[in-house]
């Protein structure tokens, strides 16, 4: 039996002290750092990177919210304060390449920070994982615990429509030799989980139905046993939807990084 490696998340401050520069900075995001469920995704992702031998760093306590929900809720001042603070730190460490698991962080840093002097190569974790598989750094042949598992993928709006990342998450699911089943509304026509635009941080407006319940019903119609997500907010919304439908015993909501980690028994 192969011994499991010890995992660690070196901070940029420690690496700088040792005079080391990592290949990439992992942007953890508030959900990745604070949300009980999504912390597991952060850890799963770090395990994969460790196994693939990627040299990475994190900001640790120096990271703060990108400001995405503030900007989308109309508070431009607060957003730009957050952006300026984060960019000062990122530029201070001379960061070139950033990987974010949260599509909101990803979109904001990639598309909006350049306006304030923060220009980096930014990848979503699904794109980066796909790259690792393509270059052979991450081997998927050894794991087949999800082989033939019926999985449906819920497109995150900020990954899909906003940034045209549709293929990477799907290719990852296919690399598990799983059976990817699409919902009726997918890719460009994907239906929002209901959390974007700072909705995550408020009660929904009055209506006939909650958006996440509508989307979950669509996901359940595929009879997939796993609803794959690639966004912390989508994960929360879909998990709540599955609970609302009392399907939490039968159907799991998992991030694509968790699927890879599970398939590789990490």
């Amino acid at each position, binding site marked *: 039996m192969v011994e499991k490696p010890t995992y660690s998340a070196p901070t940029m401050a420690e690496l700088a002290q040792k005079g080391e520069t990592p290949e990439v900075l992992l942007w953890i995001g508030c959900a990745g750092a604070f949300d009980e469920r999504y912390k597991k995704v952060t850890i799963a992702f770090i395990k994969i990177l460790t196994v693939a031998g990627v040299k990475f760093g994190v900001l640790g306590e120096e990271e703060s919210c990108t400001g995405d929900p503030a900007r989308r*809720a109309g*508070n431009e001042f607060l957003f730009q304060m957050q952006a300026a603070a984060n960019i*000062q730190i990122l530029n201070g460490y001379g960061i070139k390449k950033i990987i974010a698991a949260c599509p909101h962080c990803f979109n904001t840093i990639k598309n909006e920070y350049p306006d304030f002097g923060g220009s980096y190569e930014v990848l979503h974790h699904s794109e980066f994982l796909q790259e690792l598989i393509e270059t052979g750094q991450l081997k998927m042949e050894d794991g087949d615990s999800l082989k033939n598992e019926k999985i449906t993928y819920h497109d995150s709006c900020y990954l899909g*429509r906003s940034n045209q990342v549709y293929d990477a998450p799907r290719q990852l699911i296919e690399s598990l030799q799983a059976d990817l089943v699409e919902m009726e509304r997918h890719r460009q026509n994907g239906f929002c989980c209901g959390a974007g635009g700072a909705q995550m941080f408020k009660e929904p407006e009055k209506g006939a139905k909650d958006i996440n319940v509508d989307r979950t019903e669509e996901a359940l119609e595929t009879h997939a046993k796993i609803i794959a997500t690639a966004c912390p907010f989508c994960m929360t919304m879909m998990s709540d939807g599955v609970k609302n439908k009392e399907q939490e015993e039968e159907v799991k909501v998992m991030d694509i990084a968790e699927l890879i980690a599970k398939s590789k028994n990490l």
Partner: protein
Amino acid sequence: MIVFQQVSFLIVLVLGAYFFFRRVMRIRNNILMGQNEDRTDQPTKRLRSMLLIAFGQKKMFKKPIPALLHLMVYVGFLVINIEVLEFILDGISGNHRTFAGLLGNVRLTGVYTIALNIFEFLALAVIISCLFFLIRRNIYKVNRFGGLEMTNWPKLDANLILIFEIVLMFAILTMNAADQILQSRDVAGFPTTGFMGFSGFLVMPLFQSMDSGMLIAIERIAWWLHIIGIFAFAIYVTYSKHLHIFLAFPNTYYSNLMPVGKIKNMPEVTKEVNMMMGIPTEETDSPTEIKRLGAKDVRDLSWKNLMDAYTCTECGRCTAECPANQTGKKLSPRKIMMDTRDRVESLGDLFAKQGKEADDGKSLLGDFISKEEIFACTSCNACVEACPVMIDPLSIILQLRRYMSMEESSAPADWNAMFANMETSFSPWKFPPSDRFKWADDLNDQSGQKSPQNP
């Protein structure tokens, strides 16, 4: 008689052009009520987007059946304009079928005959398509044509346009049918056109028994009906929801080329933030005029938002894809566009009557669009993706939110709490910043070795 017709035609032409261009100038001024925004960069990319999306109808083909029907009407509109040109030349010169003479011997080359048959085919295709559209709207009742904002006028407007188009096309077929019989009877003034198949088979049989005087009257009435109808339609369109037939082209040309997830920056805020944080900024000589943050009324929006509003043809594809709308919330992206246009129009009228300083005490936010609507948006961009002519309702929603959050501080309480958390804890949730790296404690949980936070 000919001279009388020519004079009448010139009067109609000049009046039609006057009313049309007066409206065009009003709409232009209304659009320019909006704030400046540079959308002239990357002309090649813009041209390409216009050719693909407006000229090539690319985004329409997401729904193949309406796309095909619409394509018929669109091609009909484009091509039959050539015939309208002939009508105008005929009207001015007093000739009949000017192009027949210009294209050489009709029988020898056949070009004119082929062209007329193409026009007739398109006329018929337009009639059939418009009938299908009327059925989809009024009998089959396609969902997206309904909704709260589709009240009496928008409903009537849509049907009127379809009926207008059917009548115009019938006029062409009627005219050609009468013309062909008159030609066969060698009546003077009706030069040979060759056989025009669609009117020949469909309409001509109805007219065969009529005497030539009656047919001349029918031919003339149909001719006048068509050309006056075209002028009237052109003017009507400028008051209706149908302006996309012109504005789809500039609207796609000036559309957003950035990734749609990027929200438009507010440089005036950057300046203040930089000052507060001691970040040096480039000095600008021009004193910054004190502008309202975000948008309360249409004049705070950009001119492109206003062009979007005039371009909207109320097809409802946006609203049909909107997650908030589809789950029963008040928000409808189509209504955002219709409200914006209604407001610009009312303000334009007010300014025309009482001058640019006039104020009716109303505003887009509050009197037209409610807060509940804009609070419901998830910024998912489904509406933007759905629009076949690149309208961006989300941009308006976000500008209104900015006004609410920054000028009025009237964001929902939950959001104000989120703002406060972000200000004090640098996270939308209320966790102490010192806990931000605690997740790393669990990295080796499974293997049973808790790694220290700072090894």
